[in-house]
């Protein structure tokens, strides 16, 4: 459900006004989603300055392409997709290796971290863990685990093989589990 602004204009109203070039409505829309979208960019960027650049570029695309929003699906989902794509473009220089995956990659041992271990982790801890991942792992983990894209979609977005996306995800999970275990040891 889209949040309502204090001036009681609905999201649809704001979109329609923004399409007519109303800067106030555009700003209202920006304020409605800016905090969430900056968090999205933060998960892909290497540092906060890069995240802000992605964020700005993403919002400019949102408003310049606003007429392309058909109303199918949520507006937030549409903005989020633009943010993710913009972030991916800005880090496109990063090389993805179409590495072949050995069987050992699929014989993933979920080290069965106890649920209470996760509950002790704050949002910032989790963000820090994700941001510590190598670039390739981080992007695939973000896209698959958090954004909910399929491996097929990820492969198309990153121009890599589906097997590469799977491989990166498996490695990302392993690394996260290892780090969480390490945190657990430190805490003990």
């Amino acid at each position, binding site marked *: 459900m889209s949040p309502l602004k204090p001036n009681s204009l609905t999201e649809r109203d704001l979109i329609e006004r923004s399409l007519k*070039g109303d*800067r106030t409505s*555009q*700003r209202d829309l*920006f*304020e409605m989603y*800016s*905090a*969430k979208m*900056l*968090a999205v960019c*933060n*998960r892909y960027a290497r540092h906060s300055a890069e995240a*802000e650049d992605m*964020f*700005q570029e993403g*919002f*400019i695309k949102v*408003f*310049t392409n606003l007429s392309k929003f058909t109303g199918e699906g949520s507006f937030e989902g549409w903005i989020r997709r633009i943010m993710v794509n913009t972030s991916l473009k800005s880090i496109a220089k990063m090389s993805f290796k179409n590495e072949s995956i050995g069987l050992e990659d699929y014989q993933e041992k*979920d080290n069965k*971290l106890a*649920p209470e271990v*996760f509950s002790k*982790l704050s*949002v910032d801890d*989790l*963000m820090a863990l*994700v941001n510590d991942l190598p670039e390739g792992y981080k992007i695939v*983990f973000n896209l*698959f*685990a*958090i*954004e*909910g894209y399929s491996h097929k979609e990820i492969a198309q977005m990153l121009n890599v093989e589906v097997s590469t996306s799977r491989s990166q995800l498996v490695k990302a*999970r392993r690394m*996260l*589990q290892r780090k969480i275990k390490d945190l657990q040891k430190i805490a003990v």
Partner: protein
Amino acid sequence: MKHIDKVFRDKLYNQKTTVPDGMWEKIAPALEENSGRSILWFWFAGILTLIIGGLAYLFLTNNHDANSSTSPLAYEMPTKEIQIPAPAPHTLSYSDNLTNSSTNESDKNKIDKTIAVSPKLKKNNSAQQKNSTIAHTKTTIESASVEDKTVKVNNKVNTDDLYAKPANLVITKSYISNNGSIIEKSNLSKDTKSSAPIYNVFINSEGLNAGALLRIIEPLENIPLPAFSTVLKKKITL
């Protein structure tokens, strides 16, 4: 979805981050710029369309003038109605000439050729003769006029006087003897009475010694005449 994925998704999907001050102020000018650029493009596209439209108009107008000065026949004229009068006396004299000339050697050759491309006539000569005779005993006409004198002609290029003249349509009936020569009705003898009829369709322009002659050796009702309207076809079926 793995448990670890779910933990991260639940906590990070809707995560919010404090947006530094002045972010909107960095975005708004870019939107202004894009908007200005759009307006500029709009005007540019409008002016370009006008220029192209103007040039196209000038080009077409000049082309039109050039065509009209060099070739008046290039214009498509509206459909005209032409009165086709009853056959004039002088067209009958043409029929007489036809009779005389049909005995010429060259005409004989032409008829031979015509018969050659009509195997049906050769094979069923006697049957054909019989059928034709029965079919046309009522209306053995020397010349036929078109009663419905109004025929629509799509006069595409006819600004020329030649085509503005009324057209004459004359249909005469002749017979083919066993040896292939043409015999006019007046010259029919007992021996040649059962010969197959042929039809001479002559179309000319009044007052001009020009026209087209079409000899038809099949009964008219068997022949599609695409050049004539259905009504006209009925009228000339003897």
